């Protein structure tokens, strides 16, 4: 069976589950909605600060929030596969005509779709709060979120299949997530950062993705910020697919 065929079967299986329990998707939005409602308004007063360029502060804040949501999805995604390992479901599926990479890729696609749906809902919420941004740019930003979703899910699956233990996985993700977030300027633009901090942030791939999301929300399709961020996200997604596929082949 081809990887594409396996992925499609698994994608639909996972999607059926998600649609049967849409509450989980909404549940995952509670935290970012709180950020939107309780943190976002703080920024209105500092629209003259570096990085905001005197414009609509939501345009800077929301893209960061979408990437943060993507990072957080690693937790759900990883625990999901660990429970499928524990229940023997993954092994059962491996003993079949299906290719192992497809078993991962199908799940990653579902996760990317869920994240994109969450991004759409969050953005709608932000519109209510006061976001104003060009439609084309926002749609392109959603597409980039999909790529981020693929990348995060793949890395999460790879890690979870490697450590194979809920507790260890939880701690590892926590340890990786915090620096990945703080060094990417998701909450406040890195233009506010001192030189050393912005250097550190440049080494963090996530910061480039955040910058690209912001550029897209500003309608800059062809800017170097956008191109670099898209390239970084795509590269991360490719690495993630490879990592997840390798992890399931090696898992025992």
């Amino acid at each position, binding site marked *: 069976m081809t990887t594409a065929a396996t992925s499609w079967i698994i994608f639909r299986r996972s999607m059926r589950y998600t649609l049967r329990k849409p509450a989980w998707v909404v549940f995952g939005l509670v935290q970012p909605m709180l950020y939107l409602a309780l943190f976002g308004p703080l920024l209105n007063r500092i629209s003259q600060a570096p990085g905001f360029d005197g414009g609509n502060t939501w345009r800077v804040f929301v893209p960061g929030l979408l990437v943060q949501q993507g990072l957080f999805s690693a937790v759900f995604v990883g625990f999901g596969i660990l429970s499928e390992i524990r*229940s023997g479901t993954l092994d059962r599926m491996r003993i*079949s005509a299906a290719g192992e990479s497809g078993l991962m890729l199908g799940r990653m696609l579902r996760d990317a779709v869920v994240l994109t749906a969450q991004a759409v809902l969050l953005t709608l919420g932000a519109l209510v709060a006061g976001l104003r941004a060009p439609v084309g740019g926002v749609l392109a930003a959603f597409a980039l979120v999909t790529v981020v979703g693929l990348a995060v899910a793949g890395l999460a699956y790879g890690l979870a299949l490697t450590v194979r233990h809920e507790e260890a996985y939880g701690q590892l993700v926590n340890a990786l997530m915090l620096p990945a977030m703080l060094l990417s300027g998701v909450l406040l633009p890195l233009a506010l950062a001192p030189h050393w901090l912005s250097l550190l942030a440049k080494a963090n791939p996530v910061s480039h993705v955040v910058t690209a999301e912001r550029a897209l929300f500003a309608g800059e399709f062809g800017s170097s910020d956008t191109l670099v961020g898209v390239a970084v996200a795509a590269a991360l997604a490719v690495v993630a697919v490879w990592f997840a596929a390798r992890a399931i082949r090696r898992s*025992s």
Partner: protein
Amino acid sequence: MISAQGLSHSYRTRFGVVEAVRGVDLEVAEGEMVGFLGPNGAGKTTTVRMLTTLLTPDGGTATVAGHDVVRERAAVRRAIGYVGQSSGGTEHLVSDELRTQARLQGMTAADAAARAAELTVRFELDAFAGRPLSRLSGGQRRRVDLALGLVHRPAVLFLDEPSSGLDPQSRANLWDHLRGLRAEHGTTVFLTTHYLEEADQLCDRIVVIDGGRVIASDTAEALKSRIGGDVVTLETDRISDAATVVARLVPGCDLDTTPAGVQFHVAHAQRLLPELLRALDLADVALESVSVKRPTLDDVFLRLTGRSLREEGRPAPAPAPAPAAETAEAAAETAAEAETATETPNTEVTT
């Protein structure tokens, strides 16, 4: 169907290397139902995971359905069915999982739906086909697991502790399904178990594993006959006359006299009984009772290892190291159980 030579695997843990399987040889013929019997930690799961390609052996080779488990992993995976050690079950629906598994076996959507429907009837899954696997009873879930392992009609089916944790009724139901499978499709079945009864009643042949090594492989009957046959006890007042008759009829049979009568070992005592009773009658020896005790597989295991297999229905010991006092208690319990187990007669004939 299954052939393994010198299969071995060690786990590397923080606390050192665990030699889980140390050179296992196996031959299973087409259509055979083989029980892989051993206590917890003997290496059963590890062996099955190697045979099903889920674990790469450190040493040795194995072929399953004609394919090498390392070099032709994909071919083995297509040929076999695998039902793993029992687990919690997923949140996905039974009917959905059946269809998905069938699709993963390469069936078209229509074939998959038809096969799922067929299996739902066959394994009596109708009542809960719309429920998530995680909300089924142990017996129901096992039937679903079995159906999932059989969607593609595999020639070889591997089952890891299929009846572990099941109540006696569900276990009997599972056995019926396995017997039916073999009778109808000639499926080769390789199952691991630590239940003596399961190996004894269900399997054509038993491979006994302990400490990662195969220590015996034969039919249940042949294994038991290694004990030196059945134990026959005659209760009578005329002990010496009875002893004379027995000695004439079964020369060299380890005859013992007890205060209540005589006792001796003989293979296939059942076949000897009619003749023995006639001879005793002719010699005017009146009997109070006759009993024949078959040796159990536990006697066999005891003879082979000096230890008893744990008896039915006990939960597996916790993996965490238990405090010393508890361990001692558990050991005492096991010993007590072993005694009851060996003393329980399988067959008793009273005149």
